[in-house]
């Protein structure tokens, strides 16, 4: 009998098979960054369940050479941000759709497409750099793969106050689609932008968004992931946050066989703010549901505040994962770090796996974290029912109540309302 192969060989084979299935883009200003990413990926290899940060989430479907098909959801709902005046940029199965998109010019912004940017671009020397920096101390191989293989994306330079949000709309039209998009958002000092994202993207979707915030800059990010039941997605946000800058990101996840949302926030300046929040609702009744938030916040500056607020509602054997870390570097005094992750388990079959971590090398800081999972509060349920609210409606109200803290992280009232409406509709369909 042949000896079992060493794990490193298996990882190398997995990586080689994935790369062989890809048609890597050539040339352009990103060529050196892509070559670097390819070399890093070959050295690092794609993840397996044996990796510490993939213990709770099986990456097989994300690393396989070919994507599993995912049925396209026939959706009667209006687009989530329909009521918001915004600049729309549409990708269909990862391919830019000029006809469906708005004109890409807007005061205070420069937008160009990754696939069309020539040999010289302001993003030269930036593309892939925040991703590369975010590999330490924890490797994020699917982001490296993205930097090497992304076929398109947007490069947004924000130079002033932008009058309306930019929305990246990811439509899923083909069951066989497998898409990789990479965006870079550079926000100059004092500038301010809101970026919205919505849609499933593809049957298998891999995104990276690098966000570079200058001093006093501000970035608001609200994302609604697609409800297609069988889709699989891995997303990454890498942010570098300078002094007195504000970074705020919120994600709503409903449905999806597999979703892994990674965020690596690097606070390099002083007096900066970084908030990241997520609301998740998953029902595994007909299709498995697995959603994972993996967050790493690094405080390098002084007097900075960070908040992680993640809430998950899990039903019929759904799985939620939270891996959140706050790293306070030496000298990052007066840090105020907060982290909460909570799951509402609507039955005994669902599970929430949480790994909160704090690592602190400064002595004058305030850091707290909490993680809970539990059922709907019987007393509150009785209170509502005693007022005449029927059981299913009372449960839905309490689910929204539970998600309230995460939704409260959205500053814009109209956007928060759009998100709440989505959740209400999702809950109403399950009564």
């Amino acid at each position, binding site marked *: 009998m042949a000896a079992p192969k060493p794990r490193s060989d298996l990882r190398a084979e997995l990586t080689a098979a994935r790369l062989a299935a890809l048609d890597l883009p050539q040339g352009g200003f990103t060529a050196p960054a892509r070559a670097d990413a390819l070399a890093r990926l070959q050295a690092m290899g794609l993840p397996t369940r044996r990796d510490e940060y993939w213990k709770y989430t099986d990456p097989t479907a994300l690393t396989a050479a070919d994507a599993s098909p995912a049925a396209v959801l026939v959706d009667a709902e209006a687009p989530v941000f329909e009521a918001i005046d915004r600049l729309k940029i549409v990708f269909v199965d990862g391919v830019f759709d000029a006809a469906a998109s708005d004109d890409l010019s807007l005061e205070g912004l420069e937008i160009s497409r990754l696939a069309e940017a020539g040999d010289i671009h302001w993003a030269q020397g930036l593309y892939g750099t925040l991703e590369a920096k975010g590999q330490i101390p924890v490797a994020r191989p699917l982001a490296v793969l993205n930097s090497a293989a992304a076929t398109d994306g947007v490069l947004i330079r924000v130079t002033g106050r932008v009058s309306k949000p930019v929305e990246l709309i990811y439509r899923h039209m083909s069951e066989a689609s497998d898409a990789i998009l990479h965006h870079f958002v550079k926000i100059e000092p004092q500038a301010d932008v809101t970026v919205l994202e919505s849609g499933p993207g593809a049957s298998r979707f891999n995104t990276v968004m690098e966000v570079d915030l200058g001093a006093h800059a501000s970035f608001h990010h609200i994302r609604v992931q697609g409800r297609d039941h069988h889709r699989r997605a891995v997303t990454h946000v890498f942010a570098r946050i300078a002094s007195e800058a504000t970074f705020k990101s919120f994600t709503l996840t409903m449905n999806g066989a597999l979703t892994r949302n990674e965020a690596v926030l690097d606070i390099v300046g002083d007096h900066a703010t970084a908030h990241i929040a997520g609301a998740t609702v998953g029902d595994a009744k007909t299709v498995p549901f697995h959603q994972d938030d993996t967050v790493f916040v690094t405080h390098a500056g002084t007097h900075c505040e960070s908040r992680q607020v993640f809430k998950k509602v899990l039903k019929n054997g759904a799985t939620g994962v939270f891996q959140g870390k706050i790293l306070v570097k030496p000298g990052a005094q007066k840090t105020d770090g907060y982290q909460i992750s909570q799951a509402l388990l609507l039955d005994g079959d669902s599970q929430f796996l949480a790994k909160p971590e704090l690592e602190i090398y400064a002595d004058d800081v305030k850091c707290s974290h909490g993680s809970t999972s539990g059922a709907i509060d*019987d*007393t*509150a349920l*009785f*209170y*509502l*029912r*005693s*007022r*005449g*609210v*029927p*059981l299913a*409606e*009372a449960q839905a*109200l*309490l689910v*929204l*109540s*539970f*998600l*309230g*803290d995460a*939704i*409260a992280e959205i500053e814009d009232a109209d956007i928060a309302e759009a998100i709440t409406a989505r959740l209400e509709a999702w809950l109403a369909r399950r009564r």
Partner: protein
Amino acid sequence: MLEIKNLHVKLEEEDKVILKGVDLTVEAGKVHAIMGPNGSGKSTLSYVLSGRGGYEVTGGSATLDGAELLDMEPEERAAAGLFLAFQYPVEIPGVGNMTFLRTAVNAQRKARGEPEVSAAEFLKLVRAQAKLLNIDAEMLKRPVNVGFSGGEKKRNEILQMAMLEPRMCILDETDSGLDVDAMRLVADGVNALRDGKRGFLVITHYQRLLDHIKPDVVHIMADGRIIKTGGPELAREVEENGYADILAEVQ
């Protein structure tokens, strides 16, 4: 209107009998008070009538206008016209007080086959009621009972009662944790709802609430039974002498 006959109740999870044959009838338009020492079963009675889980009815019945309450879900009892003002109103973060009220009112109307109240009309009704109870607009916007003082919570219960227009109101120790002024405000709210048709069951430890909400009938409850029934003078007797004399007299 409310007719409780030989009601026997035990805890669902343990072998503990709480109500040992309660008989009580509240006529339309009347205010009945139940007084009694701690652990006599007063609050259990209010919970069992409104349908809270954790109790097992082992015998007897409780009907509202002839309909058996004990067979109904809590929301059906509410739609049938029963209302319980909680001793400890529950905080519900993330749900606006106004949203909650309108959801409740419309759910009940729907259950009774009545048209829903429009948002504008509802707002008008709530504001008028809230003003009577000294509840400001800010309190209506805030999440249900979150950050409310003890008095605000109890006033909010009475506001719900006023908006839901129940046939039969049960007040479970509504006076607990209230100062004199707050108690008067709550009592005024309750008295405003006394219209000669609505029934009230007021559960309290102390006579002082009954100075403000004047009962027609007073019952003394002990060890899971009504042991004595009388007029308002019975409440004053308790206030002066405590329960010991009555308990001794019955035994």
